[in-house]
Each structure stands twice: as structure tokens, then as C-alpha cells.
């Protein structure tokens, strides 16, 4: 098996939040707790999970916008965590990111040209003319005309802004793009446009995506494989088809049943999970899900279930499958 493009091993991240007015007492927030996965070139991995489960933290750690507190990240053979700062800065040419809210991820003071040209300016020695050409072709690639070079973000619609953000991410011909909820802020009709665009780009350029979202139906549409996160851990990972057809983890099952289906005739036997997602500052013992799990057992309170393969490339962390392993 060839080395995957991205390989994350046992990644963990603890935020030290200063508490109180003086900030003398640190509060520890375990945002990531032993996350491992790998991603082959040209593949799309979807990450789903509820708010605060650590999706964005994962993205930031991979790009090393944050320094993880443990684990390893290998990108195309390089150990990202071992790279010097300047090396990492250069490495970022190959890995880009598109964020949830297109408006807040575009500097309101810059024009479309300046925004898209910024990566070029940072990493290449192109002349302004060359940059203008390149920006125009990038904009065309995401479906925007040259007039968008002079538009400022507030003059854009949500879809246009997200396209601009994409053009910016594509500027340096990256291999790998992290998409952190790129469509959550958009309307359905616009969401469809962006998803189509992403799919098209992937086909043309052979891009590798890490696609983060909390919307199961979106993620399954675009991903080859899906990882479900709960409170800093991946609880289940399998192919996009299997997640719908054969969800194993009780959380995944609940998630599926909670997701509204636009069909009043659909057969509805909901599992409504009680309670709220526990705080990462203060996670439950054992399996973090046991506080809400309809099938919780004694062992769940005491011990975190190790990941097991219930099928080929179907990984679950749940004590329910202890025997079957």
C-alpha cells in the first residue's frame, strides 16, 4: 500500500484556557483526544460531528495553525510537526483551507484581486501583470468573471464569496484542501452550486479533500469515506455508503435518525438523544458518549472502547462490538 498523502496518528490537542479575570488558573480543554486516520491522494474524507467536537481544531492542527499537544502528522512523507516554522510556511503552498463563513474569512478591506493574489504574492515572485492573468484564470475556474477582481467582499453574495475563497485556495495549485463547513452558511440552492464546483475541481485537478461538516447528507454526497466525531474522538469511520446503510455506533445511529428528511412520507422512528453534548473541558469518564447513549453499559462508564474493525474499512469505537472483535 502506498504511503497515503496525509496520515494523522493519535493526534491530540489540549487548549489551555485561562479562566477568570486574572487568567491565572488554566482550564484544560481536550479538543482532540487521539485522532488517527489517513487520506490517500485524490480521496475525500468527510468529518461529521456536532458543534464543539473538535472538527475545526483538527483542521487547524493539520495546517499547524495550532501546535497539537501530541501525535504525528505526515504529509506526503514529511513530518509536519518536525518542520521548522519557515519550512511549514512553505509547505502551506501545498495545503490550503476554505472556511465556513465566506464573509468573515475574506478581509473586508481587500478587493477580489488582492484576495486571490495574496498567496501568489506570499509565495512567488510574480509580477503584477502575471498575477492579474493568473487571478483572472482562477476566477474563471470557479465561475466568476474578471469584474470580480475589483469587488470587495461586501459586494458579493454568499456563493460568490465562497467561490472567491476557493479561487484563493487554488492559487498555488495545492494538493490538499481542508474544507471546514464550506457550505453551512449557504442556502440550499447555493450549497448545491458550491458542492458541484468542488466535485468538478476535484475531478479536474485530482485534489484531496478533508471535508468537515455537521450535515450528514452533505458529507455523504461528497466523501469517499466518513469519520464521525464525538467529543474529540473518531467514534466510527467507514465508507460513505455504509454510514447510511449500516451505521454501527449508537451515536451515528442517533445522528442519522435526528437528521430531518425532506419527505413527510418517510418512515420516522426517531431516537431522540437525551441531554446535551458534554463539555470538552470536563469530559465524562470512559466512553464520552455514555451519558446520552441509549445502550450504555457499566463498562462504558469506566473504559474507553478501543477502535475495532467491524467490517473491511469500517472502524467503530464502541463496547457493543467488544465480543465481535
Amino acid at each position, binding site marked *: 500500500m502506498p504511503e497515503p498523502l496525509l496520515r494523522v496518528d493519535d493526534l491530540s490537542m489540549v487548549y489551555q484556557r485561562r479562566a477568570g479575570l486574572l487568567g491565572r488558573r488554566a482550564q484544560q480543554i481536550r479538543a482532540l483526544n487521539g485522532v488517527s486516520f489517513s487520506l490517500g491522494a485524490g480521496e475525500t474524507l468527510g468529518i461529521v460531528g456536532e458543534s464543539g467536537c473538535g472538527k475545526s481544531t483538527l483542521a*487547524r492542527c493539520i*495546517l499547524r*495553525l495550532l501546535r497539537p499537544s501530541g501525535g504525528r502528522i505526515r504529509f506526503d512523507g514529511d513530518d509536519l510537526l518536525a518542520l521548522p516554522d519557515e519550512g511549514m*510556511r*512553505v509547505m*502551506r*503552498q501545498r495545503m*490550503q*483551507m476554505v*472556511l*465556513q*463563513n465566506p464573509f*468573515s*474569512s*475574506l*478581509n*473586508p*478591506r*481587500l478587493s477580489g484581486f488582492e484576495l486571490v493574489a*495574496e*498567496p501568489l504574492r*506570499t*509565495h512567488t515572485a510574480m509580477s503584477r501583470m502575471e498575477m492579474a492573468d493568473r487571478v483572472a484564470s482562477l476566477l474563471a475556474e470557479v465561475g466568476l468573471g474578471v469584474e470580480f477582481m475589483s469587488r470587495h467582499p*461586501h459586494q458579493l453574495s454568499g456563493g460568490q464569496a465562497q467561490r472567491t*475563497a476557493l479561487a*484563493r485556495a487554488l492559487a498555488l495549485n495545492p494538493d490538499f484542501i481542508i474544507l471546514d463547513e464550506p457550505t453551512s452558511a449557504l442556502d440550499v440552492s447555493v450549497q448545491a452550486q458550491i458542492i458541484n464546483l468542488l466535485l468538478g475541481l476535484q475531478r479536474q485537478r485530482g485534489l484531496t479533500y478533508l471535508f468537515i461538516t455537521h450535515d450528514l447528507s452533505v458529507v455523504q454526497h461528497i466523501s469517499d469515506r466518513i469519520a464521525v466525531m464525538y467529543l474529540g474522538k473518531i467514534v466510527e469511520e467507514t465508507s460513505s455508503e455504509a454510514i447510511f446503510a449500516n451505521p454501527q455506533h449508537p451515536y451515528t445511529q442517533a445522528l442519522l435518525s435526528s437528521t430531518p428528511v425532506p419527505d413527510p412520507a418517510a418512515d420516522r422512528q426517531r431516537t431522540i438523544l437525551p441531554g446535551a453534548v458534554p463539555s470538552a473541558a470536563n469530559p465524562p469518564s470512559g466512553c464520552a458518549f455514555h451519558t446520552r447513549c441509549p445502550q450504555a453499559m457499566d463498562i462504558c462508564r469506566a473504559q474507553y472502547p478501543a477502535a475495532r474493525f467491524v467490517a473491511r474499512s469500517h472502524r467503530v469505537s464502541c463496547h457493543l462490538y467488544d465480543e465481535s472483535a
Partner: protein
Amino acid sequence: MKVEVGSTLWFLLRDRAAVISAAFLLAVALAAVFAPLLTPYAAQGMGDPDLGSKFTAPGIKHPFGTDGLGRDQVARLMFGARRSLSMGVLVVVAAMIIGTPLGLIAGYLGGWVDEALMRVTDVFLAFPPLLLAIAIAAALGASYVNAVAAIAVTWWPWYARLARAQTLSVRERAYIEAARGIGVRHRVIMRRHVLPNILTPIVVQGTLDVGTAILVAAGLSFIGLGTQAPYADWGVMISDGRLYFLSGRWWLSTFPGLAIFLTAMAFNFLGDGVRIAADPRLRRVL
């Protein structure tokens, strides 16, 4: 605070108080600049006495009367405007130039740099400002420039604080993270992404502050630590006239006082106008 220049201007122009204020300030500035052309008493404006018309009450010849050395008060006011206005503006500009980068760096870099810079700022903030200004002006010697420097020294921490607070919020914006994700250097991020986005509230604050700076400068001049004779600024004029105020020569302090009052008001209205116009949440006022 996202600013759309167009709509800000539109709202600003709808704010009658701000427009009148801007017009008033423009008039004062023009009167100051073209004072030699506008008054027949230009030499008196710059200090030459005319003992023959000492303490003339306001009348046709001298609409605002004359002072103890017989100088036309209108001319004195016009020439005084040069100093009073420029003192206010220079103080604020100097304070901004010192404070903004410090606050930006502290806010952006955080950590011990922030800690150190902010503690220094705290010390300057805790220092009674007028007292510090007086002490510095006294230490440097009384003069126009020193008064500006003295007040600016007490003023920059406010801008450092404001710039830091703004930076802290801008730093959390996704576009900063996006820029870092692209690999843009910190220096460039600070200059290109943070600075322009924190500038609006700082400039708004600056506009508001000019009025107050003029007041403080007038206070320093009032106790003799500002502009030196034979020149005068408005604070000096109030101070010089004060001894005679209740003894029938009311015009000496009244007019320069009014000048300061109206000018400070105009800056406040203008600043308020800009603040409101630039902040969509506040636009309801108009």
C-alpha cells in the same frame, strides 16, 4: 465593524449636526490659515501692542474688544486658532502614532509581549494625566511643542488599549486564520490585514479626542505651560483675561472660551457623526 465608505458618507451627510460642525471647523481652520489676510490687525494678532486702545469694549472697530495691551481680540483669536487647533490635532496624531502600533503588536502577538506592553500602558494610565502633562511640560520647559509632547505622552495609552482591544477581536476573525493558512508572514498580516481593520474605530476615537485634547492643551496654557507670549492660544487668552472677568472686562475670557467650547463641540459632533455613520448598529439614531 465593517465600513462601507459610501454609506458612511451618506449617513454622515444626513447628520446635520456633523455637517454643520464640519463646516464650522473648516471655517475656523480657514480663518486660522488666512488670518493675515482676513484681519486688519494681523500684527496685533501676533503680539504687537497698541496701548492706545487698551481694554476697548466690543464695538464696531473691535467686535470682540481689545486686551490689556490693546490688541484686537478677533485677530488674537484667529492667530490663536492656529495653535489651539494644531495642538489638538497634533496631540491626537502623536498619541495615535505611538499607541496604535504598540497596541497592535501587543494584541496580535499576545503572550509576554502583550503582558509587558500592557503593564507599561497600565502604569501610564494609572498616572494622573494632567499631572503627568504638567510635570513633563515643566520638565521640558514651557512651550507649544513641549505641551504637545507632554499631553501626547499621557494620551497614547488610550490608543494602545483601543488598538489592542480591536486587534484582539480582529485576530479572531476567520480571515486572519485564512491568511496564516496561506502562509502569510506575521508582519504582513499585521500590516495588511489587522491594521486597516482596526483603524476605523481608532480614527473615530481620534476625531472625538481632538476636542478634548484642545481642552487639555488649553488647561496647560491656562497655567502658563503652553504657548508663550507674545503669541497666544485660546487657553492663554482665557487665562490672561480671567483677572479682569468679574471687574467689567467680560469680553476677554468670554470669546476665547466660546471658541474652545464651540470647536470642541464641533469635533465631538463630527466624531460622533462618524462613529454613528460607520457603525450600522448605531445608525438608528439618525
